[in-house]
């Protein structure tokens, strides 16, 4: 064999190998189409099981893992979709990115038959809104997350805060307790208040809930893109700034306030000495402490675990109902997928009541559907009052702004509201509003 011919042979083998792998990527050996499902690593085992169950004799779902941080997940999906990747068939997306992705044209709009079911009356209001953009349904809500007030019953009792069973709220002198009441209660009784105030998305979750709880919003008319109305310089914005300022100046603030995240304040609930805390945090907290009974950082025994209370997110201002934060995951169908019809059917299967019950009981991720909350399996895994609280919070909570420019909005707020100790009622809302306007108009760098 001459050298040239050998070269050609090598090339032929290479081409054959390449062709083989490409084919394998499109269809599996049994002739079924393969649909890639990009998921975040939250509930891998359950998702793998659901993927098996939702595969049919026409297509097979294959799980692909995204990175663990929400921003890396967004970046990776965006890079694939911006390059019109036809192998991104299904994906988990954080609700705040739905508007960005849909506006970029990266999500396939749900046909009427699917849309009506994806956001039917069974789906709670928060997740249902999160799956829509510009009047169209662009994703299937899969599970919903929300924040509630977690607290030590003994601490609340000592501080004179009572729990109202009917509204599931902490009460102070007959009206729902505000952030100020709770901060004062903690400070006067040797307790602390746990929040998320590092320079990251979690801090925006808090600020947004505070602003919405005062009846306002950060931006409105978000479908106008860069011409959205910036509303944070308002009474509601000032009320939010006042809460942050009060906590930062209070002795109830935890020492790591400026770098606090979902994990940092968990240890303050059952400290080795002290009264414990009031903490706003996501739904995973219950299972977290339940699993830590008798272990360091957790309740010492069953009795101590019984001392863990939960109530609706605190009110920002007296007389206005709080707007608990909403998170979770929606399933989107890639706009460039080669099998959109299959992908739609698969997405519907991954988000039906049974799938949501499995996500909740196996991975602790709360359902977006009312029917799932009523399932016997879920009632066995969580106390009834907690399920009711989660369900109500998700149903009446406040979404973060849905905008194609969400990441700019979020970063702009973070940059002007961090650290919490620098927040002032008089200047922060105004500063952040003008900065946000400049950023949206392309007049300032982020």
């Amino acid at each position, binding site marked *: 064999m001459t050298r040239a011919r050998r070269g050609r042979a090598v090339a032929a083998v290479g081409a054959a190998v390449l062709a083989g792998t490409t084919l394998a990527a499109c269809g599996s050996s049994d002739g079924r189409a393969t649909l890639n499902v990009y998921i975040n690593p939250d509930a891998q085992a359950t998702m793998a099981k659901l993927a098996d169950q939702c595969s049919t004799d026409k297509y097979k779902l294959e799980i692909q893992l995204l990175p663990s941080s929400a*921003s890396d997940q967004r*970046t990776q999906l965006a890079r694939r979709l911006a390059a019109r990747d036809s192998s991104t068939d299904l994906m988990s997306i954080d609700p705040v990115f739905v508007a*960005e992705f849909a506006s970029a044209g990266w999500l396939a709009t749900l046909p009427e038959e699917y849309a009506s079911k994806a956001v039917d009356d069974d789906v709670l209001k928060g997740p249902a809104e999160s799956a829509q953009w510009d009047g169209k349904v662009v994703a299937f809500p899969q599970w919903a997350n929300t924040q509630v007030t977690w607290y030590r019953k003994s601490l609340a009792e000592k501080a004179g805060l009572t729990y109202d069973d009917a509204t599931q709220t902490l009460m102070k002198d007959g009206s729902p307790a505000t952030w100020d009441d709770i901060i004062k209660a903690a400070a006067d009784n040797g307790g602390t208040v746990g929040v998320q105030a590092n320079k990251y998305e979690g801090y925006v979750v808090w600020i947004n809930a505070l602003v919405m709880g005062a009846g306002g919003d950060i931006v409105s008319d978000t479908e106008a893109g860069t011409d959205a109305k910036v509303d944070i310089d308002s009474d509601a914005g000032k009320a939010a700034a006042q809460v942050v300022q009060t906590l930062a100046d209070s002795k109830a603030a935890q020492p790591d306030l400026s770098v606090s995240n979902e994990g940092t304040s968990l240890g303050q609930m059952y400290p080795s000495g002290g009264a414990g805390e009031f903490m706003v945090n996501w739904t995973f907290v219950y299972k977290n402490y339940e699993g830590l009974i008798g272990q360091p950082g957790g309740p010492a025994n069953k009795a101590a675990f019984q001392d863990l209370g939960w109530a609706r997110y605190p009110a920002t201002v007296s007389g206005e109902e709080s707007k608990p934060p909403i998170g979770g995951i929606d399933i989107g169908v890639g706009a460039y997928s080669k099998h959109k019809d299959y992908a739609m059917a698969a997405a519907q299967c991954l988000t039906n009541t049974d799938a949501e019950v499995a996500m909740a009981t196996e991975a602790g991720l709360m359902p977006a559907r009312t029917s799932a909350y009523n399932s016997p399996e879920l009632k066995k895994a969580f106390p009834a009052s907690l399920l009711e609280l989660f369900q109500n919070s998700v149903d009446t909570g406040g979404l973060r702004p849905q905008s*194609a420019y969400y990441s700019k909005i979020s970063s702009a707020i973070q940059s002007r509201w961090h650290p919490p100790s620098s927040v002032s009622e008089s200047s922060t809302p105004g500063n952040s509003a003008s900065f946000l306007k400049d950023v949206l108009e392309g007049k300032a*760098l982020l």
Partner: protein
Amino acid sequence: MTATAGARKTRAAVSDRTKAENSLGRKLVAPAVIIMLIVTAFPMIRALWLSVYDYTLTAPDDKKFVGLGNYATALSDSLFWRDTGVTVLIMVVTVGVELVVGFVFAMVMHRLVFARGVVRTSILIPYGIITVISGFAWQFAFSQTNGFVSGWLHMSPTFNWFGHTWSALLAIMVSEIWKTTPFMSLLLLAGLAQVSEDMVEAAKVDGATWWQRLYKVILPNMRAAIMVAVLFRALDAYRIFDNIFVMTNGAQNTESVSFLTYRQVIEQFSLGMGSALSVLLFLSVMLVAYILVKAFRVDLAQARQEV
């Protein structure tokens, strides 16, 4: 520079043979030139094109022409100048330290009599390590929880190196210096090898001390090599990104211009603004190169011994 040198030679004696050689040469490099144009010129032109638009990937319908608007925004923004300041500081300090340390290493490698291979190899090892890995290694070294640096310096073990601008910048610069000094010493070693031993001998016979030989004979004769080393490293240092990404992710005001650009394009999806910043970064690198070439008064062709 190479082209002019070549042209001068051709004009001096244009024989048929030279002509044929030149034509063959052009044909041989043509594929490479075409590929280079595709992979470098196209992205550059595209970046220029994008930089005059207000264009966010997530809102393709809002794309609009803004002329030099993005440049005006960037150049009038304090964030851009702060990041430029940080970048220049990192460049000046790291290149300065590397030049001195690298020269010492080069001398050691040059004068070594025994175990030459072993010493040369061990000096060069850091350069073979991927920047991201070296960033992680130094991050662990400076880490508050399991790092050893605070212990060695007898500092409070709770001192958070990455919690303050200056200490974080110091950590970043240490990792950069550790990683790239070998490159500097390699280039300087090449320069040292060029200095004729006869000249050094002659100076010695004339009674010059060691310092005099260094300053009057060795350094002036390797000016071109120093220039190349400083130029390459300065341009590299100006584009610093990996260490910052790994060690602080831009927190505590340790962001460089590259990092700012990265955030606009990858995090904010602002292709327009990001491209404008890339163009500005490119222009700054050109400026640095120009200043260095002028400052050293060296003809690059001479540095390559082509004249």
